[in-house]
């Protein structure tokens, strides 16, 4: 194509913040800075071959309920056998009508979250309209794929994305694999090290048309079960007053459930388990 002013303007017109950053400030991208073939072989300089030690975020659960979708995450990050953080938050609002939760290497995941939030806001400001829910889900998939070289080094990030589809009028869930593959999930889903146990709990606890309060209780209990069997997942902590982070998304937007309510819900779960006096 001829290099004309019009062509140049058209080529530079992008509504994507990620594309703009890649072009103008590639040093700020959370991934893709080192060409794949120049990445060091997995491991630390002192112990070649051993996996790089970095904090990992763990279990995220998400489910649909009568008015929309809900996402919840525990508060633990681990580094090998050590608890790296008891306070980390792994579920974030992506924009007004969607939330994302992240499992995997915490440092990269937090940066991808921040990039994704700016990406959505940037599109909204440039275009004057919100991106469709499928559009948002695809953008997140592209970011996860961008991180593939790092994932090959053991620094994988696996998000879970949930949002309210305003034209369709219901909440939807999306899961991803490390290659950026995007899968729409029905009913409920979980990712992270404790996801197996959380999913088992969800299968028994979830039912169609849950009310908002019931959905919050189901999420907290599923995370409780995950923490019960997975050492990398943190349970509710009454000593430090730490509760899971829970967001709901409905027609009116994304809201965080206040700690006060979560303390009550977690208290009821612990109480019912104590009363039952069962081993598992």
């Amino acid at each position, binding site marked *: 194509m001829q290099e004309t002013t019009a062509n140049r303007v058209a080529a530079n017109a992008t509504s994507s*913040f990620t594309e703009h950053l890649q072009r*103008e400030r590639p040093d*700020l991208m959370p991934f893709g800075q080192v060409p794949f073939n120049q990445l060091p072989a997995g491991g630390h300089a002192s112990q070649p071959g051993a996996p790089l030690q970095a904090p990992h975020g763990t279990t995220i659960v998400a489910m649909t309920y009568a008015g929309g979708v809900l996402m919840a995450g525990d508060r633990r990050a681990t580094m090998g056998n050590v608890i790296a953080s008891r306070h980390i938050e792994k579920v974030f609002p992506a924009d007004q009508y969607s939330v994302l939760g992240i499992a995997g290497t915490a440092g990269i995941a937090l940066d991808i979250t921040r990039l994704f939030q700016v990406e959505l806001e940037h599109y909204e*400001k440039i275009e004057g309209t919100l991106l469709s829910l499928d559009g948002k889900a695809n953008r997140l998939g592209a970011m996860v794929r961008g991180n593939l070289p790092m994932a090959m080094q053991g620094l994988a990030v696996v998000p879970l994305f949930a949002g309210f589809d305003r034209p369709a009028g219901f909440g939807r869930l999306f899961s991803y694999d490390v290659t950026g593959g995007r899968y729409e999930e029905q009913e409920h889903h979980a990712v992270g090290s404790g996801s197996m146990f959380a999913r088992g709990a969800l299968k028994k606890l979830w039912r169609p048309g849950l009310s908002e309060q019931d959905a919050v209780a189901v999420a907290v209990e599923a995370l409780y079960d995950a923490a019960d069997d997975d050492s990398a997942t943190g349970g509710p902590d009454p000593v430090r007053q730490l509760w899971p982070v829970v967001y709901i998304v409905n027609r009116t937007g994304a809201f965080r459930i206040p700690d006060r309510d979560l303390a009550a819900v977690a208290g009821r779960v612990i109480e019912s388990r104590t009363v039952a006096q069962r081993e598992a």
Partner: protein
Amino acid sequence: MTQQFYVSPEQLMKDRADFARKGIARGRSVVVISCRDGIALVAENASPSLHKIGEIYDKIAFAAVGKYNEFESLRQAGVRYADVRGYSYDREDVTARGLASVYAQSLGAVFTAEQKPFEVELAVAEVGQAQEADHLYRLTFDGSIADEHGFIVMGGQADKVSEAVAAGWQGELDFAGAIRLALAGLVADKETTTLPVSALEVAVLDRASESGRGTRRAFRRLEDPDIVALLAEEK
């Protein structure tokens, strides 16, 4: 080779400035008013989709008059500048002053170096915690920057509109009062005494967005029914 006529630098700059001024005066006015509730931005604009007012960042808005393609490219550049800055440092570190100085440099460079100057005039507004912390910057086609107090009127017959707004401006206005004042200003150069809501573009920077709406993004575009409801409120 053709012989170039000598044109003195003074004449050259004057010609360019006259050219730009003529373009800007052709359009309709935009009024930006700082008030108790925040900052109100009101434009006379018949198009519901080709905006003259836009959101730049959490507390910062943009208003422009002149050629749409020129100020739209400046608006998009401003959004990119603010988002990159906020992403690489922190959201708090994006300020209207920084943005305005980038705009001033771009406009100044275009004015002297390009074939023709931009026929635009811009306002960059930042809402603060208190009214004293509000910032209003006016940027003209040659890259001049002015820190204004209280309100900005740009485009169209700005003198007449500005006179009307100055007569009624006071810090204690709420949004309804500020928008009414802006309307009174916008009709100052016309025969009529009122404008239909469909011919208006109104947005606000909400001082209390965190406590009121639970978002740090202060910018809110008012739709026609919102404007009608706001103007119908008791004075």
